[in-house]
């Protein structure tokens, strides 16, 4: 898990928060491919929250900062929006296969519904910076013109990159704020896609991102026109970016911490109750119970144990030995060195005799 800090937050539309984070140390910096997402957790009341996944909107060519555009509509996102500059963020990832391939995806049509535009922003930025050969067309659908995010950026990117075109679709209300852009009233329909593709759908790769209903609608149109499965790439945005087990690799360490915390609290409580009981019984019983109590106290587990992330499962405590030349050919070793964090944390490395190189069946 990488440690980041919040650099800035601001709202760019009614409900969309633009979050910028930067790595705490350079070694925490992650590399990603445009279109991928990451899981974020923030610190609140001394603990880290559960993780939620969000697409990275910034360019993969500048990883000293990561930008996320987040729809604020639930407890998690509301609390995240209230975090102060400098607050800690834990980040995992990147994840996802919603990525463009230069060779296979020569002509790309991006179909974005609402906040589903976020992964496309990274792709479009990347394409403009690196001058990728792929042609990109973004059809960006929103309910009202006030819901449109990144309008100015998209217009500017269209100006910078002659291989990129954008059209805005507004289902309800006016489009006067989109004057000067390619803006249309209504939804993305079959006739508009027919017009764009010349009804030769398999000449393009379609990337679709947004709410499930939007994705289903777009997929239906594409499939009716015989678009090959390989040419349809989707990324579903779950409600409030909720985590699905299938999206995030399993990590048992947080559960282990909670379990051990609960276990030690329970054992500690029983211990205190036991000691109180002991004080209330006759001397003969006290002598026997004291013996029992001292055994329990030496076995109380540490509440802070967790599975370390940097040592292979099954490894034992590594030990380092150092030797200097002696008069004979055999090496005498002394144990020294710092124990590294392992599942046997705190154990003293055993002295080891130097082993010469012998190759054997691996």
């Amino acid at each position: 898990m990488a440690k980041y800090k919040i650099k800035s937050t601001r709202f760019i539309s009614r409900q969309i928060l633009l979050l910028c984070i930067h790595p705490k140390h350079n070694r925490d910096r992650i590399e990603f491919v445009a279109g991928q997402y990451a899981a974020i957790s923030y610190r609140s009341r001394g603990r880290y929250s559960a993780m939620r996944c969000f697409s990275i909107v910034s360019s993969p060519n500048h990883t000293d900062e990561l930008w996320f555009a987040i729809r604020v509509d639930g407890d998690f996102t509301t609390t995240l929006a209230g975090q102060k500059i400098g607050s800690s963020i834990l980040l995992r990832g990147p994840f996802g296969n919603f990525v463009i391939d230069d060779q296979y995806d020569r002509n790309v049509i991006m179909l974005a519904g609402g906040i589903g535009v976020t992964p496309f922003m990274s792709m479009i930025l990347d394409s403009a910076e690196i001058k990728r050969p792929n042609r990109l067309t973004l059809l960006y659908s929103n309910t009202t013109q006030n819901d449109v995010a990144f309008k100015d950026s998209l217009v500017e990117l269209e100006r910078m990159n002659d291989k990129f075109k954008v059209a805005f679709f507004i289902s309800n209300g006016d489009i006067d704020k989109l004057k000067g852009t390619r803006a249309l009233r209504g939804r993305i329909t079959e006739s508009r896609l027919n017009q764009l593709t010349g009804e030769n759908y398999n000449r393009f790769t379609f990337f679709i991102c947004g709410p499930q209903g939007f994705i289903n609608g777009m997929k239906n149109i594409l499939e009716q026109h015989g678009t090959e499965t390989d040419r349809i790439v989707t990324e579903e945005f779950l409600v409030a970016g909720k985590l699905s087990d299938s999206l995030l690799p399993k990590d048992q360490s947080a559960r282990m911490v909670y379990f051990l915390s609960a276990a030690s609290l329970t054992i500690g409580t029983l211990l205190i109750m036991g000691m109180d009981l002991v004080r209330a019984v006759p001397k003969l019983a006290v002598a026997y119970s004291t013996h029992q109590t001292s055994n329990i106290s030496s076995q109380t587990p540490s509440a802070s144990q967790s599975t370390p992330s940097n040592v292979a499962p099954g490894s034992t405590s590594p030990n380092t030995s150092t030797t200097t030349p002696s008069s004979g050919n055999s090496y005498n070793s002394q144990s020294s060195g710092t124990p590294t964090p392992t599942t046997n944390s705190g154990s003293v490395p055993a002295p080891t005799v130097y082993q010469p190189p012998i190759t054997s069946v691996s």
Partner: protein
Amino acid sequence: MKIYQRNLRAMNSAIILTVVTKKDSRRIDQLLDQLTARIGEFERRFSRFLNNSELSNFNIRAGRRTTISKTFMEILTTAKSLSIQTNGLYNPLILPALQKAGYKGSWPNPGNEIKTLNFSDRAVLPATKIDIGRFWAQIPTNTAVDFGGLGKGYLLDNLADYLYSQDETSFWLSLGGDIICSGHDIYSLPWDIAVQGALNQGTNVASFSNNRGRKLAVATSGITKRNGIHNHKAWHHIIDPQSGEPAATGVLTVSVTADKAVIADVYAKCIVIGGEEIATTYKENRIIESFVVQAKGNSTKVKIIKG
């Protein structure tokens, strides 16, 4: 000069990290910590025995384009390339056959099929069927990849390169008996690497000496360790990709040297599968530098062929 050595266990193997240097113990401890972390990271990402490793997730997505990391891309590209070079004797898509033969769980519990993903019902196809894009790869549906044939070698090369980048040029590293060495020992003499006997592991039957002091890799492959009985049939972990069965050429173990550990790793296995004659061909073509083959001889004796 001082010699520092760290022993640990990972990838179900004994690992020994040895560095000869003038630097102080604190600095070397940090270095060895880095090597340890890299080994742990490698196992976590590329072990087929971990169900949520990058490799396991890739295998689950067989048939679909999957974004992969740069390291995964490197290993997969190397694996595909070596498969073509060895005419399919090495094949990274061998996993279904390996599991079908009985090697389902992590050694030494190979029969522990409950905890690891089981792809034994899938097919073994040529590695040419692996599709590699700019940052994605795809294997055919109904296949599965295993890096067991070159993973240790790749990792050894990576660790050695890291030591060089830290100006440490005298070391030897062993991952379960596959070794890479460089420089000299504490007496400024070349590293001598002993070859363990195939059947009598208490004896050493030969040795390789790193006279030139540059990086030298030694890999030993064979059928004497990871084996067992599955469905009343004996198996070991070196599968012939053509037959889908454990190799049966009479070779017990092969130790080869090369300048890269990944080459030594792969070609040692190819000799187990292809037989002792192929070892000479590889040496003549300068793919490997030298070899020691231990094969079944007359009665209980082991025949030793050096080249």
